[in-house]
């Protein structure tokens, strides 16, 4: 199978995966007791109003018809429905919130990989010292810290003394200015740069610093381990011994011969961690009031608005599927040995 066929195959699998997840959500929402209307408006609403609202949402039809309608609107009409109370299209909400989560996820990954690679390389370079043990303990402790607690600690420990912003994405004034800028993509950093508003870009980065650190530290343990293990494996190979024998300095051996060996495992791990990244982002966004997709899910849950939860699940599934596809393609580009 060539790369093109492989991509097509994976693309074909994505809707199947979506179907499974949406079915799971559907079953959970419809089979379990309670329905959105009584959840929303209390149990004391009059019979006729209840019946009318149920009919509006199609809840009076048999389950299998509801299921088909539900899948039809998601897959064919590409419609994620409207919120229960304000009747705002869920797809609109998601579109406004997604860029913030993408920014945060990218920044968090950069922090995580930077910390992981540095600590992993140091461990491999100073194999005989105390450092690898320290890195190991660090990885375990970081794994054990709940991401929201880490966020709170950074808010107390770093933001309070330094005056860094702890909530939101921009100062209120910049938030308003942003809306009036001529070029809009929805991505704040991109927008402010495209419009030459470096002050807004700086403000955004300041706001992003702590959430990105939180998410990055949370995921850095696993990248430390992966880097260390794969570099350490390379360091005992004949080609690294040959490099040393030729008199190449140790750091160069580690960086050049060892680190290359870690690229593929790092890539794999980055792909695998996307799920953890998105899950961690929900808690990070809640802790820092970062208005992304995660905070939207949380609000949806609080308001018992199933359309939001359902829509977000759909988008998350899509992201996960596309990222794993991208990782597969990246393999083939990074490693000429990989053939599909």
């Amino acid at each position, binding site marked *: 199978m060539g790369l093109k066929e492989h991509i097509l195959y994976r693309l074909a699998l994505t809707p199947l995966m979506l179907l499974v997840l949406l079915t799971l959500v559907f079953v959970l929402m419809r089979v379990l007791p309670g329905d959105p209307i009584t959840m929303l408006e209390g149990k004391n609403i009059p019979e006729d109003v209840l019946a009318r609202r149920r009919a509006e949402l199609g809840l009076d039809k048999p389950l299998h018809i509801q299921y088909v309608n539900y899948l039809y609107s998601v897959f064919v009409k590409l419609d994620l429905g409207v919120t229960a109370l304000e009747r705002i299209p869920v797809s609109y909400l998601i579109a406004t919130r997604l860029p913030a989560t993408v920014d945060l996820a990218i920044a968090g990954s950069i922090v995580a990989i930077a910390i992981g690679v540095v600590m992993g390389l140091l461990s491999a370079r100073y194999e005989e010292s105390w450092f690898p043990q320290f890195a190991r303990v660090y990885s375990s402790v970081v794994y054990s810290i*709940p991401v929201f607690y880490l966020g*709170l600690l950074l808010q107390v420990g770093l933001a309070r003394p330094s005056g860094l912003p702890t909530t939101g994405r921009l100062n209120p004034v910049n938030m308003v200015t942003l809306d009036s800028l001529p070029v809009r993509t929805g991505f704040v950093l991109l927008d402010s740069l495209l419009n030459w508003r470096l002050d807004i870009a700086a403000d955004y980065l300041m706001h992003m610093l702590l959430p990105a650190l939180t998410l990055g530290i949370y995921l850095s343990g696993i990248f430390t381990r992966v880097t260390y293990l794969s570099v350490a494996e390379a360091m005992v190979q004949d080609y690294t011994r040959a490099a040393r024998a030729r008199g190449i300095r140790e750091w160069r051996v580690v960086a050049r011969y060892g680190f290359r060996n870690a690229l593929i495992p790092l890539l794999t791990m980055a792909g695998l961690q996307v799920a953890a990244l998105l899950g961690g982002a*929900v808690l990070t966004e809640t802790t820092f009031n970062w208005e992304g997709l995660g905070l939207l899910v949380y609000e949806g849950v609080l308001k018992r608005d199933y359309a939001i939860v359902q829509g977000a*699940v759909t988008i*998350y599934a899509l992201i996960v599927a596309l990222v794993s596809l991208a990782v597969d393609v990246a393999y083939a580009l990074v490693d000429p040995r990989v053939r599909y």
Partner: protein
Amino acid sequence: MRLPRGFAEWGLVVGTALVAVFVALALVGESLVGPRAVSNILVVDGRVYEVPPLLPPGSSLVVEGRELVFIMGTDQLGRDVFARVVSGARFVLTVAFFSTAISAVIGTILGLLSGYIGGFLDRVLSLVMDSMYAFPGLILAIAIAALLGVGVLNISLAIAVVYIPSYYRMVRGVVLSLKAAPFVEAAVLAGASSWSIVTRHILPNVVPQIVSLLPVSFADAIITEAGLTFLGLGIEPPTPDWGFDLNKGRQFFLAGYWWIGVFPGSMIILSVLGFLLVGESLNELLNPRKVEA
């Protein structure tokens, strides 16, 4: 007796100690600290006293000539933080226990069926499980917990669903590799029924693998539980719970009342670390060849 050596041996010692402490707290903690965990009202000699909120750690209160010490201070509602973190172990560990047990049992059964029967069933189950496995676990748990509502069993179920695929994938893999093993073929030739082949010949070989996964998945369950209760899901006040307390005390923690956040937060870290260390160290000591990434 020699001192432990290296990460794995130290990890096992420290991890086991932590696990022992937390299991003990879960079992008897609540009865040790009494009602101070859930209320700021003290009844001494038939008289009612109200404990002030936000007392710093080490504060003491003299009531009827007796001195009451709050070694971890009191929270925003005047409840004893020490009593809350001690009795909070019960809810968390109960949930972690149930969710791990549910996911291990269901995952194993599905993995056995899927691996042994194969064919269409295997394909469908694998697709379902792989989809769930790839999906962000916490978000799935949030969605399910929101739908199920409060209660120990509901939140356990929400967490269990997330971890079923881990057990399923592992068990299925072992079953597939065992199906062609000579002792299984011999059992087939001897006319053993499918039921007895699966339960007597395959299952015993799967069990050690499941056991090796248990401590780490217990640790994961604790951290997921903390995340859910931090979002206010699955729990009802005034049940003491670390994640929930961190959420409720968040404003005060940020305002400088550090003890309200630090103590519950540390309890989460230490309990997760305990199970994680036990799991990782055991795996490393029992399979020295396998270096897992």
